[in-house]
């Protein structure tokens, strides 16, 4: 077969959303790859300029359907940095706990989609089943399953409902057991290893140079986690270990994410035990001051940044969102070239694509 271009997307099962990966193949081997995005562009940054500070909150939920709380929280964190607002201690702990639950839910959705990509449908439904537990918890907490709108500028929307701590601990204990069961489908499966080891290698230097962040970066051997190295909220007081893997391949990304879920369980437990009593919210100011501020968090997919410029009115003058996947996708060519068509699915699946935040 001569070389030909194949469009993987925008309507393609591999893409997990709407984007187009144009690959040039020589037989089954990829010789070039051009990712094209923008199919889900909603003009978020322009919308933000036309909404007041409290109104933007629910919209930031829509940045990423997989981990909406981290973006909602990032927005509130950024605006609190701008307004120099000190939030109650209990709210900080609740936020940390919910962020980690969201991380588990997001990683579970990743592993579900990844398993389905590789043709392993049992993995898909098992992971979705456990994700449901955490979604139920979040639903009891915030009242919604996917777009929580739980963080507020100045704290969180409401205190924990009754029995929440018990349910959360029970869920975490159950989930840790289930994670070991998952390993039978993935780590103990020869075919899974065959499909993952040595596939999609992104070297450490490449990863840093291309601005890749999050689990993808840590799987390339850089042990850097914003939660640990530039702690926000109360991560300073919580004992956990950022996960990394020297493999640089899809299997490394799998290992990093699985271990991160285990660490998240630990963090949830600690946050629940260390949580002080007290108020969960201070009043949300109406107008923001002049000046700029930056918020930087560890999203499940990488480094999430919001940069806000206020002009002293009740609307932000400029709110810029840095989405991790926007940058990771630009490194797609580095990861893809030299592998087979079947590996496209594994490689693009392993970076956990979410187009909502990429296209903004």
């Amino acid at each position, binding site marked *: 077969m001569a070389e030909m271009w194949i469009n993987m997307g925008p309507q393609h099962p591999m893409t997990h959303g709407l984007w187009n990966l144009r690959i040039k193949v020589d037989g089954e081997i990829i010789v070039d790859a051009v990712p094209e995005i923008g199919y889900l562009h909603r003009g978020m940054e322009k919308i933000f300029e036309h909404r007041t500070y409290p109104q933007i909150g629910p919209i930031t939920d829509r940045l990423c359907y997989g981990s909406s709380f981290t973006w909602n929280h990032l927005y509130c964190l950024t605006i609190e940095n701008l307004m120099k607002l000190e939030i109650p201690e209990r709210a900080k702990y609740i936020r940390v706990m919910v962020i980690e639950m969201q991380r588990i839910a997001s990683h579970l959705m990743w592993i579900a989609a990844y398993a389905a990509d590789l043709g392993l449908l049992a993995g898909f439904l098992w992971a979705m089943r456990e994700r449901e537990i955490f979604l139920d918890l979040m639903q009891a907490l915030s*009242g*919604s399953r996917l*777009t929580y709108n739980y963080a507020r500028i100045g704290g969180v929307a409401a205190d924990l409902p009754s029995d929440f701590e018990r349910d959360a601990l029970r869920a975490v204990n159950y989930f840790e057991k289930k994670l070991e069961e998952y390993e039978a*489908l993935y780590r103990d499966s*020869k075919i899974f290893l065959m499909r993952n*080891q040595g596939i999609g290698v992104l070297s450490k230097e490449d990863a840093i140079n291309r601005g890749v962040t999050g689990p993808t970066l840590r799987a390339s051997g850089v042990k850097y986690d914003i939660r640990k190295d530039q702690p926000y909220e109360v991560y300073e007081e919580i004992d956990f270990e950022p996960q990394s893997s020297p493999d640089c391949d899809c299997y490394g990304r799998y290992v990093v994410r699985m271990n991160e879920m285990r660490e998240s369980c630990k963090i949830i437990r600690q946050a629940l035990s260390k949580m002080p009593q007290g108020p969960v919210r201070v*009043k949300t100011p109406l*107008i923001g001051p002049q000046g700029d501020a930056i918020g930087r968090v560890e999203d499940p997919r990488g480094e999430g940044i919001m940069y806000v410029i206020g002009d002293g009115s009740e609307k932000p003058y400029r709110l810029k969102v840095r989405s991790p996947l926007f940058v990771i996708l630009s490194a797609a060519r580095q*990861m893809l070239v030299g592998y087979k068509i079947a590996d496209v699915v594994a490689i693009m699946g392993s970076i956990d694509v979410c187009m909502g935040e990429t296209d903004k």
Partner: protein
Amino acid sequence: MQVNSEPAKREKVSFTGLVLKPMWATLVQVVRNSFRGKPNTVLYPRERLTVPPRYRGKHVLSFTRCIGCGQCVKICPNDCMWMKKINDPDLGKIERPGVDYSRCLFCGLCVEICPTDAILMTGEYELSAYDRKEICFEPEELRADDFPVREPKESTLLPALDFDRCKGKEECAKICPVHCIEIVEIEKTGRKKPEIDLSVCTLCGKCAELCPEKAFEMKEKLIVMFERPLPVFDPAECTGCGACSRACPSDVVYMVEMPGTEKTKPDGRKTKPKKLAVFVLEKCIGCGRCADACKFDCLKMVPESQLRESEKEGVRVE
């Protein structure tokens, strides 16, 4: 072109052992959910989902509790709510919000900002329809007057002044144990208004107990966690039309006559005196309807925090 080479660590392929392990895992799963419980699926139309009490579904609206301030409409990020003018047999001419569910984000900000807990999101989640118009709910369709509030907002008891009753006897200022009440004379009207400094007030309720005219009343006011603007009044431009007083949903604005401004008509009869607006800001919920209603630009909404700063600078506020 950068070509990634296959790393050397790739192991030899053997299908025994490591293929059987995942198959064992799925077998365990089958045995478990065939004999020790049931599958995870909810058979949706037959079995109903139980939603938690905080679930954010369709709204209900209490017509009696709602005061028609329209703050829910203002905070809605997607402009999915509007105020509808209704002629109700019991409540008279009122304005109540309706919700367009084809645009609603179900964010719950409207519930959060409501100063009277009059709007609430229920656990009803089946809202699909064949037509967009069918999910555009008028206020009458959302009406449920006496629904129980699941998680009532925290409230404080504030001394609310009924300025019509107040005769300006200055009893309250004398009684107040922390001396937070200051009697202010309102220019041109000859009346005196007790002004409460809420930063000092201990909410003891003595003023309400001992007021001879029963002008003070301890009223419950819900604490809303959004900072809100307060009206700043410039009396120089005021014509005394009373539009703000009519627009105000919570009796903040009182129109006070200014004696001595009566004009004698050619036939000898005297006109009614001009009026001046007086604001009792303790009761204000910050909806800004007075500023919208004022045609003479003598009202302006300023955020609370800025208001306190401007007070220090000596701008007169009533």
